[in-house]
């Protein structure tokens, strides 16, 4: 029998081990073998990324980070960390991308609710193994003592910070790859030098866990200024972070011809006067992705402002509409010369 172990059987067997991790407060060492070995750990605690999982206190070698402009996920609070094995460092390449050593991990926990009411929903991992990156979703239990592997994803009813009751979708393993993929290979998409603060990068370099702060670092605008900052850079940063992982050559939506990367400067490629290809009813009766000066006749904003499957963009990772993101993109399109 080639694959005798069912997931359920493994789940039962690991339950005891998993529970024994709960409540550990002393910073444990991260278990490098679990990151590197074939297979998928059933419980998040097996990796040892957290000194305290429920409180999201990082363990040794695990560093929190934040992004200038973050990906929006139904308004979830995100707790981001990277883990670097002892004696390794990040290397900034010529394009300003951070190259992670084998054995590194990127950890992102999604939470809803403030203060004591905060609930951890899921933690997504990107593990850098010898044969490349592996993406895995873990779902937190109701007791907040452990997160278990959710290969097939799942749904959970919750209320967003905007007060909307939604069915929140935890992505399945393939959907992780749907975003974290270029030319069919899994890659990290968040921690690019241009979307990290100079301060954080400087600290990392000072600690010797980053070789150098690359040119172009910290160039994306700080999204906290979204309401008042200049619209164009904010909108382009938002589209880069929220859309360009699919909408770029080699990405999941390459066939659309729409390329929303920050560095793309061809107006047609970013959607200006670009006709739809396979938008279907997602076009909403509009003729162009972006019609300058006319946000209400622009397919791009129409799809951002929808939560209905078949119309909504992004296709996965959202069950509600990002009003703040939409407002910035609206402002940007409105400013364009007709």
């Amino acid at each position, binding site marked *: 029998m080639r694959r005798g172990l069912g997931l359920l059987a493994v789940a039962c067997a690991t339950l005891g081990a998993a529970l024994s991790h709960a409540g550990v407060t002393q910073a444990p060492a991260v278990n490098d073998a679990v990151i590197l070995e074939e297979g998928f750990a*059933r419980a998040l605690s097996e990796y040892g990324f957290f000194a305290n999982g429920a409180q999201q206190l990082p363990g040794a070698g695990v560093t929190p980070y934040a992004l200038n402009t973050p990906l929006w996920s139904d308004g979830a609070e995100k707790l981001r960390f990277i883990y670097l094995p002892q004696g390794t460092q990040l290397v900034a390449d010529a394009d300003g991308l951070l190259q992670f050593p084998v054995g590194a991990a990127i950890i992102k926990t999604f939470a809803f609710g403030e203060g004591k009411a905060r609930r951890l929903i899921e933690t997504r991992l990107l593990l850098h193994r010898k044969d490349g990156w592996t993406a895995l979703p873990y779902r937190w239990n109701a007791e907040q003592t452990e997160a278990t592997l959710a290969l097939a994803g799942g749904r959970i009813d919750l209320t967003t910070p905007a007060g909307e009751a939604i069915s929140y979708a935890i992505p*399945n393993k393939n959907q992780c790859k749907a975003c974290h993929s270029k030319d069919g290979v899994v890659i990290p998409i968040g921690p690019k030098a241009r979307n990290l603060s100079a301060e954080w990068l400087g600290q990392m370099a000072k600690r010797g866990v980053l070789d150098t702060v690359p040119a172009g670092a910290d160039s994306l605008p700080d999204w906290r200024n979204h309401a008042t900052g200049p619209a164009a850079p904010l909108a382009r940063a938002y589209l880069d972070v929220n859309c360009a992982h699919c909408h770029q050559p080699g990405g999941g939506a390459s066939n659309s011809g729409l390329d929303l990367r920050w560095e793309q400067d061809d107006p047609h490629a970013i959607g200006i006067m670009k006709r739809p*290809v396979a938008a279907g009813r997602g076009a909403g009766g509009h003729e162009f992705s972006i019609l300058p000066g006319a946000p209400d006749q622009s397919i791009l904003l129409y799809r951002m402002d929808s939560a209905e499957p078949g119309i909504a963009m992004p296709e996965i990772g959202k069950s509600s509409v990002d009003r703040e993101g939409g407002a910035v993109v609206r402002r940007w399109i409105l400013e364009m010369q007709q």
Partner: protein
Amino acid sequence: MKRLIMAAALLASAAPLAAEIHTIAPGEGSAERLQEALILAAPGDEVVLEAGRFVLTDGLSLDVEGVTVRGAGPALSILDFTAQAGAGEGLLVTSDNVTLRDFAVENPKGDGIKSKGADNIVYHRIRVTWTGGPKAENGAYGIYPVESTGVLVSHSEVSGASDAGIYVGQSSKITVRNSIATDNVAGIEIENSRDAIVTQNYVTRNTGGILVFDLPGLPVMGGGNVLITNNLVAGNNTPNFAPPGNIVAGVPRGTGIMVMANEQVWIEDNVVQDNPTAPFMVVAYTQQFDDARYNPFAREVVIADNVVDAGATDPDLPGGAMLLAAFGGTLPPIMWDGLQQDADTPALLTIPGNPGWSLNLSRQGQSLAEAQPGPLDVPAYGQPWMMDGIGAPAELEARLK
């Protein structure tokens, strides 16, 4: 430490072992069991859908090479997406050498089955149905392979798509055969693709039957080498229900076989009946574009011998009634816009005695209002060009044996 061992890794060193079969029954938890099987399957494995209705609220996806997903039959194993709450399609395939067969997808919110960058894919006895009939709220494409080399669609059936039922885009080495497309805006569409055979299909009650298009501004352009033979293209007269803005929203109700841009399309031995705007339509790309790589003209489209009725009796064209009066009550079967790249590159060739008419437009993108309709005057074709090596690779056909 208990670990879940990834099967694929074991397989790598034990390749001769027989492929494993993962059987999924409908009912409680079937969505999760099915998606888990699609993730954990190893190359060569088969995921079997037992007969019954699988109720799904999220899109499914497959990213493992060489997997077969097999149901009990397109009437028996049904993936029901009526309550779908997420994802852009019912099933997404992103790996090569996949075979999908003997199951149905109903009422997906977006596309039915999309395979992207998935080379050598087979769709066999697949049914995609929007059960409420033609509606603008239906998803765009039923069967939707894109950016792939090697595509075989056979014995499949799509109805209700608000764009194209069977749509192959930005691909090459394609065969669509023995399939049924009804009640879609476009029955079968081959777009920005090369080396395609469309044969022995039944295409009816769509707005337009079979479309061969090439569009600007896309990563893959330059469609051509398409053979359309032995299809029954009849009674395509459904009012266009595509959401405005989409290219097919411009297809007139009552179009049989339509070619827009493209080079070398051979149309022969089809039965083309009761398509009251145009049994055959050959045109240049109709809109403005800004793409130096793109050729908007039809080049060497051959309409050879087909079984066709007298022509169009109820054209969905501006000034249709006047046109009918001018042509004595029936527009002859071939409609051409009159545009071609240059005198040495004819847009359209046909056999002597194949009647048609031309809009006699003089420049690409010109309004139909400026047409000066007149009789068709195009060259006769010579010998058929070499079409060897087009269509799906033999290996895909062999999988069905």
